[in-house]
């Protein structure tokens, strides 16, 4: 949760850029990465985004947390493709009476998928590290994402921390009363924890509605106002997308 909270504390020119420009740019690059068949382009994107992360001085712990899961998934995909998919055998070895075969084409495909994963994750990581939640929501609403959906996202984001703290308090109380000693007891405690969170959500939603109505809520939540596009920012972004597009085509 701390990783989540520190996101909008970054201070750099990338963070200051218009969220709409960053979002459209990221989506364009993401489409190019996932439609590319090979290693070169995703690796180039990965290198650029890592450079961006270094430039804005993303703390190492936060960076590793963000990339650890995709890296593990990429490794598993390589293993799956190397041993279970392919025709050209690279090696064959007997181990404890079992013949293990690795396939060259399987390895190639696995590496391509792994590069795609890392390239795509790096794009989203850079976007996440440099854009605050409210800016991103405002950009989504500019992109004509239905207002109702954006409102759900904003409510959810606002109360994630509150409910998370409730969950921590209940969990600690249960643990101190040996609520997780034994499988059966643990299952019951976990169920009670989930139930308590839902109950709290119901009660809080009622309290929030009352307080919002008292402050003039009529069912509409105003979104963050956009400042006008800065021509230089837009021009540089379009130029960069074009350069990346050419690289995507020729690599």
């Amino acid at each position: 949760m701390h990783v989540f909270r520190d996101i909008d504390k970054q201070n750099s020119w990338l963070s200051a850029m218009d969220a709409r420009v960053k979002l459209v740019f990221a989506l364009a690059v993401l489409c190019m990465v996932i439609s590319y068949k090979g290693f070169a382009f995703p690796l180039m994107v990965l290198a650029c985004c890592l450079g961006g992360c270094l430039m804005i001085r993303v703390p190492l712990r936060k960076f590793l947390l963000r990339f650890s899961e995709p890296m593990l998934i990429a490794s598993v995909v390589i293993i799956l493709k190397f041993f279970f998919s392919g025709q050209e055998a690279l090696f064959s070895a007997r181990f404890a009476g079992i013949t293990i075969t690795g396939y060259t084409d399987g390895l190639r495909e696995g590496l391509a998928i792994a590069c795609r994963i890392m390239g795509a994750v790096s794009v989203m990581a850079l976007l996440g590290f440099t854009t605050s939640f409210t800016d991103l929501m405002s950009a989504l609403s500019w992109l004509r994402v239905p207002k109702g959906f954006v409102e759900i996202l904003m409510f959810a984001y606002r109360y994630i921390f509150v409910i998370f703290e409730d969950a921590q308090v209940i969990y600690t109380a249960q643990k101190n009363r040996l609520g997780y000693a034994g499988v059966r007891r643990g299952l019951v405690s976990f169920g009670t924890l989930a139930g308590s969170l839902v109950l709290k959500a119901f009660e809080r939603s009622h309290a929030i509605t009352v307080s919002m109505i008292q402050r003039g809520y009529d069912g509409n939540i105003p979104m963050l106002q956009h400042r006008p596009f800065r021509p230089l920012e837009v021009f540089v972004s379009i130029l960069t997308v074009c350069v990346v597009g050419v690289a995507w085509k020729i690599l």
Partner: protein
Amino acid sequence: MRNRLAVSLFTFHFLPCVVPSAYAMHISEGILPFNWAALWFAVAAPFVAWGLLRFNKISSVDLSFKPLVGLLAAVVFIISCMPVPVPTAGTCSHPCGTGISAVLLGPALSILIASAALLIQALFLAHGGLSTWGADILSMGVVGSITGFLVFKFLRVIKMNISISAFMAGLMADWATYLTTSAVLALGIRGDAPFLPLFWKISAAFIPAQLPLGILEGAMTAGMVVLLYKKRPDLLVKMRVLKPEEVTP
């Protein structure tokens, strides 16, 4: 063939220790090629639209509905981020939480809630992804919610106890989600290889984590429904989980 089977068994004893099962339900960013990612977006979109229509309809007459759905999305987000130790896999995994929302609010709104939770996780936690958002909505939101809801309703129709119905709803929602995730993954990464063998291998890799986790999800859903039944049965009636006559005064 026999050798391949033996290698599979060996690897899938090893793989679950390596697979980051804490995020097993979510398909990672970039893993699906463009055509598959686009297809799953197209498949998931009508379901999300269905959820939005229902959300707009109810929230236009009930002002407290928007905060409620937002708060339940936060609950689903937190539940699906909770690491749960899975001793058989020697690692951690997480429940989906869609069984709970499907039982309480019905499949349409549960899909919407899952979509919101998945988007926040994809944007800020690299848990799932934006390019795989459609596929994740399909597996966790659509299949998980609809399965959980139908199982709960069916068991209630045949007069099954409410806690058993909720348990089965959570269990089946979790397992249906994991099977769909395996199918989507197998289709996305198979290349020229046949689909079924890879699907079984991926499913087998997740079994040590997902079998006990389904039970946990079932227990969690049952615990939630039982707690609400004991403390706030009026809410279950309001949400149409129970009929008024089923609540003893």
